[in-house]
């Protein structure tokens, strides 16, 4: 859920998890935690449903297979939806849009936010203040508000939703990246690279960034979790790019009025979104715990 708020509460203190270790070691130790494994299993399952589901769908997502809102039958395993389309087929088709948009938005937020945070930390001058205050202004909005304001003017376009979710994810990532990079830019190897005349951008990407990967990995999972919730939530509010396209969030919106007589059209996508977000949440928590563990065992505290 819950974008805006929550950053302080959930995001582990960046300085605590600045593991000066390659990301591979971190992921290996995270994979030893059972919560990471369960989370990963859920994510793999739901991603598989989203990617390969359409190949197993018995009907086209827009074919009419019966009367509206009928219960499960031989033709329609989980009954029909609000206009008589097959709920099971639409469910199997409906994950691609949510997942694809959430991954794209998270990638935009992660890349832009990571760059801004690193540049702010490395600049060590007024640019740092300007960048971070600009981030604060975006943070003064609940994430969903900004998306809604944008949709109100342009309409629920795919690129617009990806862009606004990505841009509102950006300041949250930037804070974490800056926090993680601040102790790094003071270290000797950065000064050494500067003395050797290595271009500053190459120092940033080659020396500073690799050392901030583990907090950024944790943040990536957290942001992916929220982006999925936010994009599915916008579709649930009726703002999906394709009206009558198969989309888990939009399915809930379409079929919720028939919840009493035909719950499957709502229950299937709700369960899918729930398991997916719980999965990414568990993986993120596992990585965060592993990162803290690495620091502890190295006596960095």
């Amino acid at each position, binding site marked *: 859920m819950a974008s805006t708020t929550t950053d302080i*509460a959930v995001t582990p203190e960046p300085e605590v998890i600045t593991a000066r270790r390659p990301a591979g070691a971190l992921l290996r130790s995270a994979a030893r935690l059972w919560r990471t494994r369960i989370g990963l299993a859920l994510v793999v399952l739901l991603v598989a449903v989203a990617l390969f589901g359409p190949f197993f769908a018995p009907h086209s997502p827009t074919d009419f297979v019966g009367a509206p809102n009928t219960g499960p039958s031989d033709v329609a395993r989980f009954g029909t939806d609000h206009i008589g389309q097959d709920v099971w087929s639409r469910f199997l088709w409906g994950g691609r849009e949510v997942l694809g948009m959430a991954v794209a938005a998270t990638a935009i937020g992660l890349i832009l936010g990571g760059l801004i945070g690193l540049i702010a930390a490395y600049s060590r001058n007024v640019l740092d203040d300007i960048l971070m205050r600009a981030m604060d202004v975006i943070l003064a909005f609940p994430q969903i508000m900004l998306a809604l304001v944008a949709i109100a*003017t342009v309409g629920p376009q795919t690129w617009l939703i990806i862009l606004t979710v990505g841009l509102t994810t950006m300041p949250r990532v930037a804070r974490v990246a800056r926090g993680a990079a601040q102790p790094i830019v003071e270290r000797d190897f950065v000064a050494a690279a500067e003395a050797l005349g290595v271009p500053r951008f190459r120092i940033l990407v080659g020396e500073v960034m690799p050392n901030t990967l583990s907090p950024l990995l944790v943040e990536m999972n957290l942001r992916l979790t929220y982006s999925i919730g936010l994009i*599915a939530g916008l579709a649930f509010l009726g*703002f999906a790019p394709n009206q009558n396209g198969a989309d888990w969030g939009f399915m809930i919106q379409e079929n919720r009025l028939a919840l009493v007589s035909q719950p499957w059209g709502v229950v299937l996508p709700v369960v899918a979104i*729930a398991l997916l977000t719980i999965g990414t949440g568990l993986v993120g928590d596992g990585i965060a715990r592993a990162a803290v563990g690495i620091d502890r065992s190295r006596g960095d505290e």
Partner: protein
Amino acid sequence: MRLGGIAGFVVRRLLLGVLVLFLVSLVVFAATQALPGDPARSILGRTATPASLKALREQLGLGGSVFSQYVDWITGLLHGDAGNSLAAQEPVSDLLGDKVVNSAFLVFCAGIISIPISIAIGSYAALKRDRTFDVTSSLTTLVFAALPEFVVGISLVVIFATTVFTGFLPAITIIPPGGRPWDDMEAMILPTATLVLAVTPYVVRIMRASMIEVLESDYVEMARLKGLPERTVIVRHALPNALGPTFQVIAINLAYLAGGVIVVEYVFNYAGIGGALRDAVSTQDLPVVQALAMLIAAVYVVLNLMADIATILVTPRLRTRL
């Protein structure tokens, strides 16, 4: 003149809040300017008559420069005049008055329930660190923190209203015209529960972390060594100090509720500003969208300000440093 002490701090934070709101107003205003081509035509569509286009342009305040449009809009807003709704043809303030009260009541209910519960769970989990209660509560908070709030809301409706326990609780909240949400408290249960489940995990986590830190501090050990009963140590010495960082998170979460109500109100057809915003977005009713965006941003800024001030007041160490 340089103001010192708490008053100076409050003034500085207030000015910062005003600055943020000013920048937010620029963003909100810019969003309406981003309409491709002629806003009036893109709202009314290709078949609009010249007369209705002209009327809408006037209503949107589209005469004059961008700067004068912004000044008109912002001065109107400051005087409580947010213009007319395009869909309802009524002043926005008339349209939203009751809904602001309804939403505030929903947020109030969620806050008054979730804050004490989450403080209690968080402190108890810290006391029982790594034991069954702590592990269970940490996993539960993890799951609920990950779930989108509309998923929680709809699951509650399926379980308690429509499918599992049919008719146990009302699935939607109907507030009759002129009625107040507190007239029918039964209908408040599910929307409130959804928001409580959405917010509690974050406060529990910060409370637990803060309490663990305090329990390991020297002054708590000192209090124990003095031979004070464990109860007194926790209630008198540990708890008040652990609350400091928690205040900030509570206020941030209340501020979050201002945004979270958008989806939750829609789930329960609750007549509040969240539902109104959703409807305004789908009908491209820009004056209503602008007014609500500014209102929610203002609530957000004010709550964050209160959080900072409260944190200063409960943390003597910070107070002397001002």
